[in-house]
């Protein structure tokens, strides 16, 4: 983290997170459109082992049902598999059939019109992928054509998709207190190297200095409250943009609170009310983006979908930034209570989590770091 301490708490003219993410996504989309596509056509071995086993079994069953001959393979993907995965499976099926001495008629050749047709359907059930081959001859009715069916686990899809770009999450406990707080931040003075802990409560901002293994209260500055107070108060410390926000107010001041904080009523941020897009894997829970990417993928952190009376967890999800699923990746961090707030740290690939520990009743601060592993 590096920043100018003199401007730390000044109001920022930076764009809201949503707009920044939107712009970033547009730019990434443009970038990706020019990037060469990865082809799996020659790399069926990149499939997970269980998928390769399923493909081999499918080819075995086809070979048992008909003698090796020239065939035409048509593929239809009616599952949630993305284009590249479907292509990889098709390539693997072709390779396996060739091992059984099948050959393929060229798409436009005259032979293709008369050879036996294999219809490969990539489907899925509630529990797994289902891959089906129907042998369709000219004379046979497709409805009663011989059918070969194999299953392939879905879990391997997520693992395979994220296998090359696994996210590793770590949590670091910072502090805890009985009183609820909305956000916290660690600020390091660039000149002295001294660390200050800022804790944003529902009605005050408090700073603490390290004292051995403890944090010692340094200063407190009141924050005005909206009237009537919210049952679900929210607030953010934004060190990068140099301000704190609580419902209805934006505040600035020195990070050590030497002169307190000055708050003024703020206009509510207008949320972008654009077309809603259903994104597979987009949880209905607390989430945030994290700065940086994992091999080109956007990184998001999401809590579990429980309520505030349940233990909670945080897990990373990756997406390429085009309407592909948000794929869970890496380990899950467990907490003894609900994550009440999750804020991105604009300086690095981390986020700040405020957790209400249901066992102790205390509120705990954690820094959650997302690392892109091999």
């Amino acid at each position: 983290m590096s920043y100018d301490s003199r401007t730390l708490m000044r109001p920022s003219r930076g764009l809201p997170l949503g707009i920044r993410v939107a712009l970033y996504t547009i730019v990434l989309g443009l970038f990706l459109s020019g990037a060469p596509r990865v082809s799996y056509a020659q790399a069926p071995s990149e499939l997970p082992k269980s998928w390769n086993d399923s493909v081999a079994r499918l080819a075995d069953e086809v070979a048992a049902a008909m003698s090796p001959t020239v065939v035409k393979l048509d593929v239809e993907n009616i599952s949630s598999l993305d284009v590249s995965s479907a292509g990889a499976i098709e390539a693997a099926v072709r390779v396996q059939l060739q091992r059984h001495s099948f050959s393929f008629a060229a798409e436009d050749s005259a032979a293709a019109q008369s050879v036996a047709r294999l219809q490969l359907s990539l489907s899925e059930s509630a529990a797994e992928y289902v891959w089906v081959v129907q042998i369709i001859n000219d004379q046979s009715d497709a409805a009663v054509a011989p059918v070969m069916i194999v299953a392939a686990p879905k879990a391997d899809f997520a693992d395979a998709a994220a296998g090359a770009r696994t996210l590793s999450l770590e949590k670091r406990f910072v502090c805890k207190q009985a009183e609820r707080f909305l956000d916290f931040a660690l600020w390091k003075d660039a000149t002295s190297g001294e660390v200050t802990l800022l804790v944003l409560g529902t009605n005050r901002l408090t700073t603490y200095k390290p004292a051995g293994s403890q944090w010692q209260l340094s200063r407190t500055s009141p924050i005005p409250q909206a009237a009537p107070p919210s049952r679900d108060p929210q607030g953010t410390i934004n060190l990068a943009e140099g301000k704190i926000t609580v419902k209805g107010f934006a505040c600035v001041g020195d990070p050590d609170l030497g002169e307190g904080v000055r708050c003024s009523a703020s206009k509510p941020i207008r949320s972008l009310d654009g077309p809603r897009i259903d994104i597979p894997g987009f949880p209905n829970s607390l989430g945030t983006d994290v700065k940086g990417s994992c091999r080109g993928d956007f990184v998001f952190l999401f809590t579990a979908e429980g309520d505030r009376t349940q233990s909670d967890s945080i897990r990373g999800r990756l997406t390429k930034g085009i309407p592909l699923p948000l794929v869970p990746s890496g380990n899950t961090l467990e907490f003894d209570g609900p994550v009440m707030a999750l804020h991105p740290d604009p300086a690095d690939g981390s986020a700040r989590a405020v957790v209400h520990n249901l066992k102790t009743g205390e509120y705990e601060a954690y820094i959650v770091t997302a690392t892109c592993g091999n």
Partner: protein
Amino acid sequence: MLRRLAVISALLGVAFAALPARSARRPRYGGTLRVEMGASLASLDPAGAGSSPEEVAALAQIGPLVFEHWGAVDTPVGAAGSGAFRVTSWEAGKRAVLAANEEFREGRPFVDSIEIVMGRAAHERLVDLELSKTDLTEIAPQDARRAAEQGVRVSASQPDELLALVFVEHDAPRTSGSIASGNAAGRAGGRASGRPLAPAKEEVMGQALSLAIDRVAIVNFILQKTGEPAGGLLPQWSSGTAFLFPAAAPSAADLEHAKELSKEIAAAGPLVLGYDSADPLEQSVAERIVVNAKEAGMSVRAQAIPGAGGGAEKSRSAALQAGHVDMELVRWRMTSPLPGEALMDFLSRIYAGPLAGIEAGALPETASPEDNYKQQRAVLSTYRVVPLVWLPQVYGLSARVRDWKAPVPGENWPLADVWLDTETPTGVQ
């Protein structure tokens, strides 16, 4: 290409931009959730609650709210009040009030209470939804589109209820083996003509009907596109193999084939198709089948059968016998989203009903997609079960209901998770 990707990315950007807004929708406690249902429950005791399908379904939704667990066979587990809610008021068959259980081990529900009004007719429930006099109620699938067009917030499950035509099992036992080889002389019961229909003829008739029935038209016109044509015993989302059982509209060749099949059978009076007299959807579908059958040269007569009231299954069975019904419409709900479990349940009904006496092929406990496919193919090849359409469970919600997820098969209404957005205007009060 560049432009398309840029547009897609822009749309996604907007979706991500809404992330903080979505995440900010944290649940709130308080309020009374108003629920209306068609059934009238006398009590929460399974023995005294009534036994019509509607009552059984209603009990299966309310019971689990009050008891800690609800057994698989409509059996409460634990004391009343050990669930998410406690009954604070019960007017048998009319109204119930449940209060949030502060001590519920899975956490206190978000709403303070639930007010359940029972015995409301479907059209009354719809009107109450439109006037925001209720927060949650079931809507008949055929009414879903009209409700949505009138501004009602509609939530639909995956299609999980099979509407099928099945040949009625009569009293006499049948020999095991292929149904086509069954002995017609051994069959009791009968048709409008009073003569039994031979199994082989049933098979031919079933095949002809299966070819002639326009499932797509049933979905498009009767169900107003709320549902899916059914060719198999499991929906595509559950099995992944439903596409192997075609359910397209009949082609000219199909109709011609159906006519040829129907000519093979000496007509001895119309086939009688029974439907639940209390079910307007079944009535509409039965009438449609009569028309489709006629187009294929078959004579079918639709007949209403009382299906409600105490001992429904028994009385319905007796009515089927007394009415000389050859086949009937049935609605079977899946008990699990998992294809093997759902199929197992369907097969138990089929081999106790239309295929009684036929030896069922063994379905492994952990059936593969291929096992499930073969079992379906075996049943459907008898043509004593003709799948028609898949129906979703449709719910109407008021604007203030949050975190409602239409339950999947085997799940109950998630009313302990639902919360009320009191900042959302509720409309006319």
